[in-house]
């Protein structure tokens, strides 16, 4: 068995009595006070997540901008310095290597934030596509811890508890503090919030201050329910090597017309023109049982037409809901389908997958 890695806050989680579980190679906190309590705290007040497992990769050098745009579906050239963007890295065939955030410090200095589970694969992918570009690629994951401070009170918490004034940071923008820590108005919950990237020692110091101030520690359990309700994809559920961003409904983060294109551009352009064979949809399920990852979606005759990617008995919506890949012909809102939940089938209706209306402050 491979020993799980620990984040810089591991001792803190254990002493708080968190239930810990392996995730993406790390021993991570799943919940402290309980998933529901933590979820509600983020929606109504503020919560803090240790997301130090996320990977950070620096791309520096004369060709940094050109190279980032070569591997990234979104448009890094349109970003201002101090701005970040969400998008994907795709293969030639359009399959998704990873979804990520790109932070532009300036046109020769970028930081890529990638999924922990994909860090090794991504770094290898990035390096293997760098021939002919004057860039330096460095995996900085071990140098950074990361906190996500999320919820309607997050801006006040950042200022009062951490002394960081975020009022000047617009949505998907960031500031670099004198100690080179990065604070961005980003997140993965559907709420207004911030992500902080800093040296492990500083992360520990900030975490302790947040705990002393009574901010709710939140685990990966509610991180998943929160992002799911907001319709945000998780790599491994809604995205994968054999899933394209077009299928996953992420076309707005794929800039097919940007100058110079990007790896996978032609395959994605073709798919967009022809229409994908399957699409990611939201499902509202008329059952007290929850349809979970991998469960089959059936048409009304009982034929398999897709599968569930994520499903929960939703706290904010109060129903069993799910995201699912289904044959494109069933992807219209209002389509009637069924979900196989163990031995039984339950009626399901296609709905907008943004179950929770985000509260971003832009």
């Amino acid at each position: 068995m491979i020993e799980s890695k620990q984040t810089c806050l591991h001792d803190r989680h254990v002493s708080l009595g968190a239930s810990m579980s392996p995730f993406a190679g790390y021993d991570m906190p799943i919940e402290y006070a309980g998933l529901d309590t933590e979820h509600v705290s983020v929606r109504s007040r503020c919560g803090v997540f240790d997301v130090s497992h996320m990977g950070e990769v620096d791309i520096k050098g004369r060709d940094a901008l050109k190279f980032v745009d070569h591997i990234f579906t979104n448009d890094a050239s349109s970003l201002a310095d101090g701005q970040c963007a969400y998008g994907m890295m795709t293969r030639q065939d359009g399959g998704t290597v990873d979804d990520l955030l790109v932070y532009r410090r300036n046109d020769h200095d970028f930081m890529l934030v990638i999924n922990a589970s994909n860090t090794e694969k991504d770094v290898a992918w990035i390096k293997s596509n760098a021939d002919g570009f004057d860039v330096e690629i460095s995996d900085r994951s071990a140098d950074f811890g990361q906190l996500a401070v999320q919820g309607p009170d997050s801006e006040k918490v950042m200022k009062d508890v951490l002394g960081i004034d975020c009022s000047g940071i617009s949505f998907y923008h960031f500031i670099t503090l004198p100690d080179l820590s990065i604070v961005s108005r980003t997140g993965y919950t559907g709420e207004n919030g911030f992500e902080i990237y800093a040296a492990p020692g500083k992360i520990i110091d900030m975490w302790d201050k947040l705990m002393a101030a009574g901010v709710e520690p939140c685990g990966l359990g509610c991180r998943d329910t929160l992002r799911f309700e907001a319709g945000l994809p998780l790599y491994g559920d809604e995205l994968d090597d054999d899933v394209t961003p077009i299928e996953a409904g992420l076309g707005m983060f794929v800039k097919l017309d940007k100058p110079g294109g990007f790896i996978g551009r032609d395959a994605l352009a073709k798919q967009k023109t022809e229409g994908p064979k399957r699409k990611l949809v939201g499902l509202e399920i008329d059952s007290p049982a929850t349809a979970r990852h991998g469960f089959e979606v059936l048409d009304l005759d009982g034929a398999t037409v897709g599968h569930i990617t994520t499903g929960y008995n939703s706290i904010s919506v109060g129903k069993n809901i799910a995201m699912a890949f289904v044959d494109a012909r069933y992807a219209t809102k209002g389509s009637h389908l069924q979900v196989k939940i163990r031995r039984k089938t339950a009626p399901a209706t296609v709905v907008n997958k943004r179950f929770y209306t985000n509260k971003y402050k832009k």
Partner: protein
Amino acid sequence: MEIYYLPTHEYIKVDGNIGYIGVSEYAASQLGAVTYVDMPEEGDELEAGEEFGAIESRKAASDLYSPVSGEVLEVNEELADDPKLVNNAPLDAWIVKVKIADSAELEGLMNQEAYDKYLTTL
């Protein structure tokens, strides 16, 4: 009533040849708030060690395994209306009432003392 457990944390409370099957306090606390109990139907035949339903919380669904073989005499309909009864009083919130086909199967289960000891190893 005597009580016996499976390593997967189902219990059976035994009253003569009648058994009440549910999940242990440990299992209930690990699950968190129960959202749904997927139960078999009256008349179904359960087999010892085989899955007969599932119990769900926000976090996950866990299969339920039967400690014994036997016919389902009754399912606990109260759990359909209020699945959190499993959290409130797991040992009272039985899921199915069964007619135990072979009492000898009970010998392969853990008694309270053995189960308590087993929990310390987890």
